[in-house]
């Protein structure tokens, strides 16, 4: 019995949908070998100086909550002798760390300065004042407060995260070593225990200008390192089918530069020690395919500023005492500079513009087999 034309058409369409999709004429994959907040190196972008060291901001905060000079001296004297491995007794060490950790005040009672950073008075830390920052114009506005990207010279760049943290000494790159920020420290120490991130570029001919598809996905394996501690190239990774970690963008390749066409989401599992996961909204991305086979790129978007604050809060007293980062001060800066997605109730912005720089080396990918998916 012959099928009626509409039925036959529907069946053909269904079969077409089930059939394997033709692979792009050219596909290149990379495993991410470096991922840090994009920090532009500029000598004078903190015209009022850098933020004070831990000794100074501890004194400032303790005075602000009403501790007497005598009490402050006692706490910090104990701290000086009680820093990790110091000569202070365990009790003195614990007391100093405790006094500093609980230097917030709620209803006059000591409060945890990292869990309740709002309990410490806002010190209005110094932030970046410059024309330059990496990133993208995420909101279509080119106000005086926005930056210009030093590479693309795109104006109206939104990167308030860089503005917020850029005047912390440990967050600043140096000319002799641009990859020496706290984000670099984190990546260096976390990369061996992070699932690998895979960037894939698909197009008809990646040697020519034209439309391409960019995927940013999570692998099932770690990215191994070579003997020089560089991410090993040409390794094969299985792509995690979990849709949460599948980011796909239509993009355009022009003169070796790939730029995503329209904003999209960027979600990727990171590390509970630093930022548990990235969840950039209205994200944009650009990549450069280098002649040596590697890739370098920037992804920018709006991130929940509390997720970024978590990286500081989770370190707690160690971030302050051992790395000189003012945690409550950073909390206020992130909150104040947040520039997107206001809370419908409070009206406060919940997200902050940010940009991250990544590098990748060539890799191969294979899909996860059905049995492997079932067994997960």
């Amino acid at each position, binding site marked *: 019995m012959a099928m009626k034309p509409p039925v036959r058409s529907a069946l053909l369409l269904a079969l077409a949908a089930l059939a394997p999709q033709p692979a792009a004429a050219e596909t290149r994959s990379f495993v991410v070998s470096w991922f840090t907040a994009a920090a532009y190196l500029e000598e004078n972008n903190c015209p009022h100086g850098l933020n004070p060291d831990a000794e100074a901001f501890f004194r400032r905060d303790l005075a602000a909550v009403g501790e007497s000079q005598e009490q402050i001296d006692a706490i910090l004297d104990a701290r000086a002798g009680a820093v990790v491995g110091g000569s202070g007794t365990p009790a003195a060490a614990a007391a100093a760390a405790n006094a500093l950790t609980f230097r917030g005040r709620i209803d006059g009672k000591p409060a945890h300065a990292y869990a309740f950073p709002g309990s410490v008075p806002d010190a209005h830390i110094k932030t970046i004042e410059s024309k330059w920052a990496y990133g993208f114009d995420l909101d279509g506005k080119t106000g005086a407060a926005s930056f210009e990207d030093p590479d693309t010279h795109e104006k109206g760049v939104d990167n308030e995260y860089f503005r917020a943290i850029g005047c912390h000494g*440990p967050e600043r790159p140096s*000319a*002799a*070593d641009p990859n020496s920020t706290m984000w670099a*420290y984190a990546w260096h120490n*976390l990369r061996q225990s992070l699932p690998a991130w895979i960037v894939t570029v698909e197009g008809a001919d990646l040697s020519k200008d034209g439309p391409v598809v960019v995927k940013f996905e999570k692998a099932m394996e770690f990215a191994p390192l070579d003997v020089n501690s560089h991410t090993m190239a040409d390794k094969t990774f299985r792509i995690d089918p979990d849709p949460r970690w599948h980011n796909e963008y239509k993009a355009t390749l022009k003169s070796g530069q790939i730029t995503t066409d329209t904003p999209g989401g960027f979600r990727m599992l990171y590390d509970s020690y630093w930022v548990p996961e990235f969840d950039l909204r209205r994200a944009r991305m650009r990549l450069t395919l280098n002649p040596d086979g590697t890739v370098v790129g920037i992804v920018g978007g709006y991130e929940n500023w509390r997720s970024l604050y978590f990286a500081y809060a989770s370190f707690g007293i160690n971030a302050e005492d051992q*790395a*000189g980062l003012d945690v409550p001060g950073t909390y206020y800066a992130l909150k104040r500079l947040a520039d997107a997605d206001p809370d419908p109730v409070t009206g406060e912005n919940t997200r902050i513009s940010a940009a991250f720089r990544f590098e990748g080396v060539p890799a191969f990918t294979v899909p996860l087999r059905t049995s492997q998916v079932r067994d997960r």
Partner: protein
Amino acid sequence: MSAMRFTSRRTVLRGMMGGTAVTVGLPLLDCFLNANGNALASGKPLPAVFGTWFGGLGFSQGFWEPKTTGANYTMAQQLVPLEPFRKKINVFSGLKLYSDGKPIQPHATGPAVCYTGDVESAPHLASLDSLIADAVGQDTRFRSLEVACHGAPDSFSRRSATVRNPAEPSPIAFYARVFGADFADPNAADFKPSPQIMLRKSVLSSVAEQRQRFMQDVGVADKARLDEYFTSLRELENQLQLQMQKPAPLEACSVPNKNEKEAPLGSVVDDAMENHRLFAALLAHTVACGQTRVFNLMLSSAQSNFRETGSADTFHVVTHEEGTDAVLGYQPKTYWFQQQTVEALRVFLMAFDGIKEGPGTLLDRCLIFNSTDTGYAKLHAIDNIPLMTFGSAAGRLKTGYHIAATGDSVTRVGLTCQQAMGMQVGRWGSGGNQTNKPFSELLV
């Protein structure tokens, strides 16, 4: 001479003294040594001594690695103060550790692998020095000795995760422990066992009878716990037994001056350096006097807490906050702190190399493993971790070499040390850090 030909260095004289049975060890006479005086007549090497020397936060990348490899290397800029000892130093560059996908704990993972061969320092693992002490430290008064110069009893030496060997942070207390009432001068004209030691030994003997009964009445878990406890008691008994013997004279042994004043215990770098100087001298005398064959010295903690007088900013904070100088190519303040480590090493080597033993020095009889917690301190990197060894373990290890073993695990040095100390061990470490490749080109 002929009368001594059949006598080994372990020969003891047995007899009574003051109504107490004592054994009297014979001195390390020339007839026990070979013609060169650098080994025992039997062909066995002189008793080698193993030590560890730890200083936190390493050196500046690119400034400590010699440019050439092999023998006769040229000391790199940061290690130039050690040039007088270059022929007794092996420098190892390019070594790293493998985390095998496990989270890295900055400052802890480096020492964990250097000392236990395992990224996580698995609970059952003993540290390198402890393994060596098990092999060579049984016939000395102290199985091992641990000191720390930064005011805290930190030590990486451990029998297991729960049995650690804490360090002595006070040079005065250390002096009292080693050269106090229980010290028997090996060069003293007469010898009489200390009444206190005899009393302690007597008490332990009675304990020994009771523990047999005790062990029969407890469960398996408690038996294991008691066994660990009684093992330490047996070690104490052995040590007391040793102190019942007249020690062999040691030409190089002399009791250090006890009137030296220690600096305040703490993390102020000047104080720690002064206390390190005292510890270096005390340890050298301790080893020369045969009180131990294993020691551990910690100049500063991992994540070094060193700070200058009047500053609360530690060396560690500086590594994070300071930028790399574009002209110099390194972090200047970080470099300055690291030079304190180099200076301390120079002082330490002077103390050990300044004690003459036969044709060589005390340093020659030692094998000292120098390690740290990071490669590039600003990133707390775990690759290119600076490692060195000092001394030849009484001629068992060639010295004066720079070995560039890029990508190999730091455990290769630990395995080499164990084999140089005469241990019959073929592999060491776990996971990606396990190795069966000592630096055989250095082993004699």
